[in-house]
């Protein structure tokens, strides 16, 4: 039976969820990371984590929100972990370029976006690049609308003050 609680959902149902939401998860992860291979790894992991625990598969809106939230969390976690790994391996003393990826001159705005603190980046990507409303973005990030507006405002201000972004 489709949509029932427990672990007996058929693989075809999971595949349907991948087909319906996979490209959206990939797109978000790509915009957040700038790396297609990393985006695939993150999107795949997000599906596994959400489908493992999500029982109400008949509610596509709720599923989408949890999936995007998990993609955002995993991306943030990946960059935090990468930074900690590098700091740990170097004894916490050496500082290198902390850009998540080197995009070169492909897009200065995107490069600047990827230099933002992760929560600001997530707010801007979800709202502007991913076309979610403010309320949807706040729901995905599990913050209040007021907090989202604050994050978006600070993110835009940081982008405007970035040397590489001409406004």
């Amino acid at each position: 039976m489709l949509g029932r609680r427990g672990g007996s959902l058929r693989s075809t149902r999971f595949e349907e969820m991948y087909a319906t939401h996979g490209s959206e998860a990939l797109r978000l992860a790509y915009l957040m990371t700038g790396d297609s291979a990393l985006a695939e790894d993150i999107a795949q992991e997000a599906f596994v984590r959400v489908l493992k625990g999500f029982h109400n598969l008949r509610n596509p809106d709720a599923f989408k929100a949890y999936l995007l939230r998990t993609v955002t969390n995993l991306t943030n976690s990946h960059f935090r972990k990468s930074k900690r790994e590098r700091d740990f391996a170097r004894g916490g003393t050496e500082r290198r370029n902390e850009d998540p990826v080197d995009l070169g001159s492909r897009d200065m705005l995107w490069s600047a976006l990827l230099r933002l603190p992760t929560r600001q980046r997530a707010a801007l990507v979800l709202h502007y690049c991913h076309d979610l409303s403010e309320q949807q973005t706040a729901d995905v990030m599990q913050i209040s609308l007021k907090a989202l507006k604050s994050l978006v405002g600070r993110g835009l201000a940081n982008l405007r003050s970035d040397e590489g972004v001409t406004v």
Partner: protein
Amino acid sequence: MQGLEDRLKELGDNMSRHAPSELRPTARALRRIRVGRAVRSGAVLATVAALAFGGFAGARSLSSDEALPPANPDSKETTETWGGMWPQSSLEEARRAQRLADAGDPRYTWQVFPEWPPFQDGEPKVEPGDVELFTRFLQEELGWDEFSWGVGPERYPPENWPYEFVVVRCAPDETNALYPNDPDGRECAPTIDGNRYETVRIRADQPVREIGGDPSPSGIWVVSGWTMLQPSDAPVTGDDFVRHQIQQVAPPSEAKATEFLRSFLQARVDGEGAKQYLADPDSSLSLPFLYTPTNGAPYERFGLELVRGPAWPSGRMDFKVRLFTEGGATVVEELFIDRRDDGRLVVKTVSTWDAEAEIGYA
């Protein structure tokens, strides 16, 4: 001139064209989903049974997270018992404490610490171990005299970062014979048996005041929940250190670790058999230049040096590796040796350089 908001929307459209467009479930992913759902169903039944028999002692438990849908879909925890708020025990008490702290009452102003955690470069400026609220909680509420915050490179569970973290209890006045050279580990001897530590996961919150979802510098902080982490069924490795009771691992000797790494590097020079050494051989991020760097020439020799470790409590050992090709190119990698659940040694990657340019890190 086009506004920044419009340019961001345009960026989303443009970059989406470069994004991979199709995601198919791998066999491994489907297997993990099915196993996870089966385990979770068992956990839900256990939670229902525990509630029915009054098995939850804490004022705040995770039972509500088991409702549909889950609050934390990327959480790995199953059933835990959570202790309640401290030092206030209710929102009403916290509101009163906030009013008195605002008036300068020293009985409550110690709960205000504007330095934590507003972020600097994406990290908290002050770590939990430096915050009086948490040290007093550990001493006064849990009765711990000695403790250590932060185990390994990943010190926070990924959910609710950085407002949840893990602290381990250390045996008073004892040294840790297994890690005599680790600055943190040698001062923290296990408290349960020869290898296991009492481990608490703490959740912090500003119950009364915040600014737009961010911490307020004048708001009081409380421990809003805590739970003693339970032992893992399998040996705890890597990220799971923040999810289970800490159990230190006997580190491999430097000679054994070096021999293992040499075998791995020799396989790369030989051009085959190196993947079996990797922790995640299927990941595209594991090692981009496994057998050849960007110039396409095979490796002809290598060198390695131990940079750090063995690190408490995982026994992790970090190495810097150089691989040389006939054409003169050099690949530099930062790797570390970890243990899988079955005790087997594996290689994990921190970063890789080709011709002095960092090209990626896993």
